[in-house]
């Protein structure tokens, strides 16, 4: 799995993921995300366009990030989800809790 | 003719069964050593440390009080019986020596091992037997978790550590029991008693006792686990196996004690 973190502007981090997010690579993602949480990034946008598969550990990693950011008032938006990835959130009944956007523009508005 | 045939036939069958049994026990023992010693070097998860410490605590907690009680009684009885004989020869002062040496070489290890066989061995067999009949062991296997490191290794390691430790405790409390009875009702001076106790006791006595208790711990552990994992036939099977485990352990302890004593007597005089 490839993880790219770009700081778009002050407090706005864009994370681009590529590949499958499963048991093997979710610890790596967790580490990368916890760095952002440590410096209390107020907005994190995660691009899942190139992610074909997210398993329970990937979902849990996002849930943990969501909880941590909520504590300091940060905003997390996931966008460009493929249908199968979106269904992972739906099955776990978390699609209404997370901010899931169709595309980047919508994600930016949601993060406002 | 047919009778003779069936007689030898049944001997053959029994021997065959026995050999299969031996082979299975051997398999269990080698599996244990593989997972306890070799596996960690091959980069595998060796065994649950959490389970190990839980077992250690459970075994100690379960048997500490009984071991202490039994050892104190045996120490006291030993002192009384020794005094009864030694008084005839005017050698009452050697009571302490007799108690401490027999506790260390013989009674400490054997009492502790028998208590552990009854308390811990039985509960290991019952627990593993229940897991076996309720398909929990199969569940482990289908989850890709090998039962040997998960169930067997922590228990054997815990018993290998706990039994000798409790044996040391048993020495101390046995000697204390002898001391209390001797000083209060046999009229032996406190200093004389302790002096004699520790003068007579040499390092070799302690080592002999500890070596024995190590052997006993392996016997109790493997017998308990082997019978537990071999349970068939529901709750009734678990009950039967538990009894079998305790009986077999006690017999094994006494036979092994004989062999060990002989070895120490002739080989390391």
């Amino acid at each position, binding site marked *: 799995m490839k993880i790219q973190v770009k700081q778009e502007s002050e407090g706005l981090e864009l994370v681009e993921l590529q590949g499958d997010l499963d048991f093997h690579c979710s610890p790596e993602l967790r580490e990368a995300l916890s760095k952002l949480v440590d410096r209390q990034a107020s907005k994190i946008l995660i691009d899942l366009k190139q992610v074909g598969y997210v398993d329970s*550990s990937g979902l849990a990693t996002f849930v943990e990030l969501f909880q941590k950011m909520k504590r300091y008032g940060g905003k997390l938006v996931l966008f460009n989800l493929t249908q199968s990835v979106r269904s992972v959130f739906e099955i776990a009944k978390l699609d209404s809790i997370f901010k899931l956007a169709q595309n980047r523009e919508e994600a930016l508005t949601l993060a406002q | 003719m047919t009778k003779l045939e069936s007689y030898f036939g049944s001997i053959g069958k029994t021997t065959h069964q026995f050999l299969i049994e031996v082979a299975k026990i051997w398999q269990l023992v080698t599996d244990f050593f593989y997972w306890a010693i070799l596996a960690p070097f091959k980069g595998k998860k060796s065994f649950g440390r959490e389970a190990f410490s839980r077992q250690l605590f459970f075994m100690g907690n379960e048997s500490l009080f009984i071991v202490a009680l039994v050892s104190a009684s045996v120490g006291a009885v030993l002192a009384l019986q020794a005094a009864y004989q030694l008084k005839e020869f005017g050698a009452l002062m050697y009571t302490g020596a007799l108690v401490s040496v027999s506790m260390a070489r013989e009674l400490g290890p054997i009492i502790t091992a028998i208590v552990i066989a009854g308390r811990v061995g039985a509960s290991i067999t019952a627990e593993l037997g229940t897991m076996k009949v309720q398909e929990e062991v199969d569940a482990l296997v289908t989850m890709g978790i090998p039962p040997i490191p998960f169930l067997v290794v922590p228990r054997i390691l815990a018993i290998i550590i706990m039994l000798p430790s409790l044996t040391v405790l048993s020495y101390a409390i046995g000697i204390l029991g002898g001391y209390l009875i001797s000083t209060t009702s046999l009229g032996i001076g406190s200093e004389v008693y302790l002096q004699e106790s520790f003068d007579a006791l040499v390092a070799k006595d302690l080592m002999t006792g500890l070596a024995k208790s190590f052997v006993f711990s392996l016997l109790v552990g493997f017998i308990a686990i082997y019978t537990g994992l071999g349970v068939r036939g529901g709750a009734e099977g678990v009950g039967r196996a538990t009894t079998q485990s305790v009986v077999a352990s006690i017999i094994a302890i006494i036979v092994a004690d004989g062999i060990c004593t002989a070895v120490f007597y002739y080989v390391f005089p």
Partner: protein
Amino acid sequence: MSEPVIEIRNVQKWFGERRVLTGVNVDVHEGETLVIMGGSGCGKSTLLRAIIGLMHPEEGSIKIFGQDMASATDDEKNEIRKKFGMLFQGSALFNSLTVGENVALPLKEHTDLDDDIINIIVKVKLELVGLTGFESLKPFEISGGMKKRVALARAIALDPKIVFYDEPGAGLDPITASVIDHLIMDLSKKLKMTSVVVTHEMTSAFRIADRIIVLQQGKVVAEGGPEAIRKSDHPYVKQFIHGEIDGPISFKESRDSYLKGIFGDEEI
């Protein structure tokens, strides 16, 4: 049709002199729910145990994801086992562990995930089986139906591709059994899992199956969709479905063996 995820070829299994499986051929395809049906002693549980590698057939081969279970090393077998889950007849939960720890066990043993992450996964899985908030209870504190659900949550902990069910309705009242059936259907569909269900319960089988195979005396005697099986002309299948006493399954041992049992070999 896609490549089968499980391929069973000519599997034979003996228990001593008795042959329990007499050449079974079955393919299980990705995403389907296959029900293996048959009376007691027809060999269906043996077949299931052979597929998951708890016992080895004397002849024939079983391949899961293209890998042969019989020739696989222990390590390879454990790798395959991570990719499927199994729901045991009696749930087989570990009584010394809490509900949460039971579900967490495969995750703890097989992944390097942090405990916090594992806890979240456990909560999600328990929600999927409708048991949110039961984490800290011990198995003996919950009902049989709940145990089944916890066991199901544990079976899907590692997001398996295949789940095996051994008599999922056994020991449950009809309502709870139907709840479990619906859960199986729901999860297989949502999580796109392949399900292999062994059962003798007709209602359950017809409710959940995409395809049914009927085993009799260690042989597949009928195979097809629920409708086809219901309309089958095969005498055993008919007898089995309608629960008739007369038919190929006889409740009486043959007269000869009965008399032999009483009088021994002597001529009468």
